[in-house]
């Protein structure tokens, strides 16, 4: 019984911390027209289009390179 309460509390705490991110991840799988739809939870047809777009653009690799460079500079 006491153990059960403990796990319940842990579950509440973890969902409080992670729920917004899970929601953000779900949103990242939605197509643009679905973004503003109600109910705002599950995507109808999950798609990786946004992730593909990120990697396709030359900008992204450059940003990663910049961040790595900064990280290196900070470590020195």
């Amino acid at each position: 019984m006491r153990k059960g309460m403990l796990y319940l509390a842990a579950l509440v705490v973890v969902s409080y911390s992670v729920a917004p991110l899970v929601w953000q991840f779900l949103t990242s799988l939605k197509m643009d027209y679905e973004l503003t739809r109600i109910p705002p939870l599950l995507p109808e047809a999950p798609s990786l289009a946004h992730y593909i777009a990120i990697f396709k653009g030359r900008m992204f690799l450059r940003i990663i390179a910049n961040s790595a460079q900064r990280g290196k500079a900070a470590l020195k």
Partner: protein
Amino acid sequence: MLCGLACSETPADHEKADDAVTIVFKHGKIQGDAEHFRQLLLRFEKENPGIHVTGQALPSSTDEQHQFYVINLDAGSADFDVLSMDVIWVPEFARAGWLRDLSALLPEAERRDIFPGPLKAVTSNGRIYAIPWYIDAGLLYYRKDLLDGVGAKPPATWGELVRLAGEMTKGSEDIYGFIWQGKQYEGLVCNVLEYLWSHGGDVLEDGKVVLNSPGNIAALTLMRDLIAKHRISPPLVTTLVEESSRHIFGNGRAVFMRNWPYAWNIFQRNGSPVKGRIGVAPLPAAPGQPSASTLGGWQIGVNRNSRHPQAAERFVRFITSRESQKTMALTIGYKPTRRSLYRDPDLIRQQPFITGLHDIFMNARPRPVSPYYMMMTQILQPEFSAVISGIKTPAEALASADRQIRHVLGVER
């Protein structure tokens, strides 16, 4: 380092001749496919052997762009030659002495072809400090299908808009009557000015502050009433910016929306729920007053400290030319500042919507053209925001803004 993460370059690939000059063009994010813009820069290089141009995009927020320019121009930087400016910055930068006088680039005959609003905005003491590049102005978007359904025409007065929006949303939870940009930011000032002007009011008149007027009070009262009394604008308009209002209207969840022309192309894309079901019209006005739109858009200027002013001026002429503006209108959708293009057959064939914009752009009015504008807007934003969220009465807010702006205008003395 300063440029940080958000910089991207559009270099033209070629071997550099020793006597070649390279000019750097700073601009905001270019909408749509960046390739079209790159082609434009390449065309310039082909037509002007010996001049290379590097396009560098600044962070997409205009606040950050303004900050970048101010810090660098104040420090006398010559790292960039040509810069694109929001319409409200030109008087400020010109007053600070950061821009080259470009009056010679715009002969009298060409000036007549440019819309009066942007021309006024780039002129300080009779000199021209930037060339208008593309133009924006506030429009009324409406649901053509819904209006046709009741046999109504787009409203010419605010009263009609209130009546129509009220009728069409009666008993329905799913659709808002009228949405606009009410968050506390620059866009709110753009919205409010349209109400002030269309009620015969204004902020400045011949350099004097005229905020505290019956017309302005009526205008702000109407804006608050849209939310609190007529209930055709939901309370959440106090959080809306251009994109969030476009999302709502684009999902078919509003009858009317105030926004800039850019939204049109997005609404007409395949898969858009409102495709073919919308129209645009000039914003309504009070009875007997003319409709007014706030002018937006971007202008091109030359850094006073540029090491290659001749090459930079050549590039400015090129990028603001009729030909370039036409290309950008066709490929990116930027609206030309040259009026004659609105009679161009190619453009009309591709974007029939553009002919209707000509008259709206003719009536587009610049926000107060003053080097103090950035200070004035910081005073106006919270005061206007206080009115539409019901914290202050229009008279209180206007009196307070009037007093503060008078104080600011006194700083030079």
